């Protein structure tokens, strides 16, 4: 009898409200497929194979002479850097007066399984840099790499330092042995040769598995409960759907590139030891001698700070800055913190050197 009277009527009310939100959701909310993730206007200025070089339309008059090229990660697509007008990394840089280019790696198919580090570093990235140099009549560009895109950008900067005026590494994947994340644990025990021999490219399903083991209950259950609870909050819902759509769009990674990645970075840790080869060339991090800015996030559960920070200490630059932010991997590039702190600090640093 005591139990019956102890039930709070608010519990029933909450359950009914939640059920109503679930039923009403399709009336208020767009389907993820109906949302376009391309926010800031841009032109495609070069296409090679499946890659595209995007040039963003200036919002204000360009204040800085050196253009900035962003080398986005190979996991998911570049849209997270331009996910929402209020949280757009690209838009913020345009508002600070920078000329911004983005390298979209595209979606590789089975035919691209032989693409390797050399193709990405000395092919696609090098062609983009040359294109920008031609277009902007400058001899050097500023280069920013994010996550795995920073590993490619780091290799490029070490091989072609004459082309890079300033280098910004945002959550770079560098020291695989020091990486404390779940991803690195899985990568260390993977037979990459067998996967590439049998499947070809690294399939997106494998990346989805990797995402699913990152905070599985917060990300797999609570996140969706919150979404339905806040279904009438337009701003929250819009942001949620954009990020969800971005998370669900993971292209395969070309087999040879993936193999070299797993073996050279996570299993043998060659890059930080200056023993990694791209094509026939050895990557020597000491050759990175231009101004360098490294950004890491303490709560990064995809690339731990211990994996990224060694780059700051390994390069030959004398003008170098390391910034550590109280956020996560995505929070560093697409959040209110990134707009209020990460980007203004990076912009000030870059403006002084551009």
């Amino acid at each position, binding site marked *: 009898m005591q139990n019956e009277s102890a039930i*709070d009527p608010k519990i029933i009310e909450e359950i009914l409200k939640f059920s109503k939100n679930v039923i009403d959701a399709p009336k208020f909310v767009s389907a993820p497929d109906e949302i376009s993730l391309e926010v800031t206007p841009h032109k495609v200025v070069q296409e*090679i194979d499946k890659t595209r070089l995007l040039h963003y339309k200036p919002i204000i008059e360009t204040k800085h002479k050196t253009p900035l090229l962003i080398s986005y990660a190979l996991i998911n697509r570049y849209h997270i850097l331009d996910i929402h007008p209020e949280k757009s990394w690209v838009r913020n840089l345009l508002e600070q007066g920078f000329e911004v280019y983005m390298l979209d790696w595209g979606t590789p198919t089975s035919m691209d399984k032989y693409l390797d580090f050399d193709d990405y570093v000395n*092919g696609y990235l090098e062609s983009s840099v040359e294109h920008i140099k031609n277009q902007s009549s400058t001899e050097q560009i500023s280069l920013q790499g994010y996550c795995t895109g920073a590993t490619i950008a780091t290799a490029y900067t070490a091989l072609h330092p004459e082309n890079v005026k300033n280098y910004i590494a945002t959550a770079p994947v560098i020291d695989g042995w020091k990486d404390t994340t779940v991803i690195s644990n899985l990568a*260390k025990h993977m*037979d990459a040769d067998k996967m590439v021999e049998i499947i070809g490219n690294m399939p997106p399903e494998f990346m989805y598995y990797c995402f699913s083991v990152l905070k599985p209950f917060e990300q797999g259950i*609570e996140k969706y409960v919150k979404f339905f609870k806040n279904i009438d909050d337009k701003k929250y819902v819009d942001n949620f759907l954009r990020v969800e759509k971005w998370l669900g769009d993971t292209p395969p990674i070309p087999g040879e590139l993936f193999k070299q990645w797993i073996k050279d970075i996570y299993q043998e840790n060659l890059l930080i030891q200056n023993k990694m080869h791209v094509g026939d060339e050895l990557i020597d991090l000491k050759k990175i001698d231009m101004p360098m800015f490294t950004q890491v996030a303490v709560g990064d559960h995809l690339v731990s700070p211990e994996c990224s920070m060694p780059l700051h200490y390994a390069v030959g630059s004398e003008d170098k800055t390391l910034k550590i932010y109280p956020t996560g991997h995505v929070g560093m590039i697409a959040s209110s913190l990134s707009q209020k702190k990460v980007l203004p600090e990076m912009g000030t640093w870059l403006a002084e050197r551009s």
Partner: protein
Amino acid sequence: MQSKSAKDSVESSTNMTEYYKHLSLFWTDIIHLMSSKPQALTSIGPMRAFAANSKKISVELIEINENLLGFNQYITEYYKQLSEVWGVAQKKVNQKAPKIPQDVEQIEAVKRIWIDIFDNDFTELFDSKKFGENYGNLVSKELELTKHWNNITNVILQSVNLPSKEEVDEVYKEIHSLKKRVSKLELELKKEKRKNAK
């Protein structure tokens, strides 16, 4: 230490697999040999190709069964690890939140405790060497199964005069190599043009 009955069971299962492997190979070989002579006279080939293909497919199917044994072992261990962690995490939640929640605030608090404990315990498992090793072996066995399936598909593709995966791969490799050479030449040309324009 494996018990005697478990050992016997493994041995008997291995013997059974070996027996069926032998039986299948015996008949496919005999059919192949028998068909090769008299049928060569009366047929122009398809039956012989059929027998040879059947043999290849039988061998793949037998090996798939062998791989399945290994795959089952690792997948059992995978779910065992998950369920053990689930049990321990649930006990921790019960200790921290022993009472049945009575209002909305209490439900929220219990939910938070549940999520935090489960996320922490599962992350600890996913970070562990034993999970990494078993998961690596599980994926490896899954890949071996896929390889057998690929091999069977290749036999079928070749029987209808279509290129096999290896033959298509050779073409991909050749295209990649050609594209790489052309890209390097184009890039060099671009650089030369810029130099000359100065």
